[in-house]
């Protein structure tokens, strides 16, 4: 209820995703309770909240990854660019190309670096020939800030890279299908501070051309990179606001309790 009011207050830029009254059930268990959230275009939105509050569940709603989970049922309405993504005619594979995803654990395919990035463009037929595919692969690696480090290793296995490089490889892989929106679920949780800084730098860079929604357990990371932050608690959005406001003067006691480490 509060979250909805706040939404309208902060809804000054165009929102690319609009979620209304989204509830998610795993069997009988209701993991999300009527969540409404607008995601502004070309901004970074951070989702924070205690473990099990439904952040990943919400993120997975946005590209229908929940469809792949047995027993999972999604209610409510989610639009991307005004189009209902749960409408019957929607092709999930195309949707997931538009709304890419990067996971907590870097999960490169056991293939070459080149093939990792080329995989999805090939499936989607984005390149007419080998030259075009090369261009897509190199451009994606470049955008992911990885090209310099791997340009001589393109035929080596992606799994041989360091954790931070693997994570950026996964970002390159997501970028290769030219998405508009990138969902990231704790992309830095397994990375050291330097690798984290590189991924954060990359995320900020990507913001110019993409809309990014990132789940993070690092309050500092949310504060550093996002413009908007949503605080989830027990399957609901307690507070959504400008990141700066939320981290200096949160409106809700529960938000304050969580971000200051007083949760009880």
């Amino acid at each position, binding site marked *: 209820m509060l979250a909805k009011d706040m939404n309208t207050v902060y809804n000054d830029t165009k929102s690319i995703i609009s979620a209304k009254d989204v509830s998610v059930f795993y069997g009988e268990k209701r993991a999300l309770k009527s969540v409404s959230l607008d995601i502004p275009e070309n901004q970074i939105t951070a989702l924070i909240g205690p473990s099990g509050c439904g952040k990943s569940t919400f993120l997975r709603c946005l590209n229908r990854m929940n469809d792949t989970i047995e027993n999972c049922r999604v209610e409510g309405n989610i639009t991307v660019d005004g189009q209902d993504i749960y409408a019957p005619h929607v092709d999930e594979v195309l949707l997931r190309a538009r709304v890419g995803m990067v996971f907590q654990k870097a999960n490169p395919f056991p293939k070459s670096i080149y093939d990792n990035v080329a995989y999805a463009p090939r499936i989607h037929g984005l390149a007419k020939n080998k030259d075009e595919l090369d261009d897509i692969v190199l451009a994606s690696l470049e955008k992911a800030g990885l090209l310099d480090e791997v340009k001589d290793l393109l035929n080596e296995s992606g799994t041989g890279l360091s954790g931070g490089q693997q994570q950026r490889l996964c970002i390159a892989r997501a970028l290769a299908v030219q998405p508009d929106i990138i969902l990231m679920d704790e992309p830095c949780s397994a990375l050291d501070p330097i690798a984290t800084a590189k991924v954060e730098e990359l995320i900020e860079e990507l913001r110019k051309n993409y809309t990014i929604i990132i789940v993070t357990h690092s309050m*500092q990371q949310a504060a550093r990179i996002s413009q908007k932050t949503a605080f989830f608690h027990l399957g609901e959005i307690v507070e959504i606001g400008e990141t700066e406001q939320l981290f200096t*003067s949160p409106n809700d006691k529960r938000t*304050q309790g969580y971000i200051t480490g*007083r949760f009880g």
Partner: protein
Amino acid sequence: MGSTDHIVSSFDDELQEIRNAIIEMGGLAASQLESATRALVDRNTDLAQRTIETDAEIDALEKSIDNMAIRLLALRNPVADDLRLVISGLKMASLLERVADYAANMGKRGIALNQAPVIRMVSAIPRMSELVRRMIDDILAAYAQNDANLALDVWRRDQEVDQLYNSMFRELLTYMMEDPRSITSCTHLIFMAKNIERIGDHMTNIAEIIIYQITGNTPTESRPKADITSTTMIENELSLSSTNEGDK
């Protein structure tokens, strides 16, 4: 509310340490103002001298608050009300240090005055000093009890100090014109009164900081301001003093 209930209890302790140090510093600053004023009224050079020396303690407290705050910022990454408490602590410490400087400066001027012939006491100075000392007490109470309303009350009270200062300023100008030999002493008194008035201003600043710390917002009404001496011209005083003459 306040610096309690963190899962990591040593975090609570560190925040509380900052609060305690601020309150200690404020208490010392208030007693410095009191000593400097008493030294003036009683023409007590020893007390004035002690006031000057005690200033070092307040400087040391400020440094220790700075260190605590920097350490806490670096190690705990405070956010929200915790962040506001640490930043407020830093700012308040720096203002209280200046408050103490004003008191020490009053001590120095008190010593200089005692070397000059006795002049008429200006009762407005101890009265101003008392008003401002009560502002300090209340601001510390507001801080200790997280009482934004009390802070706002202090914030509004600064106007009375300004008004007292204005009338005293005029009074001293009149003395100086009556008896040019009193100019040196009267100038010291004006500066002492100005010091007290500045301390009052700093209480207004601290009130704003406390209100921000508690609520996350600064007061929205415009600041009460009644010190007009910076635009008071001697010509005005001449005509004023001539009307005063007429009153006699």
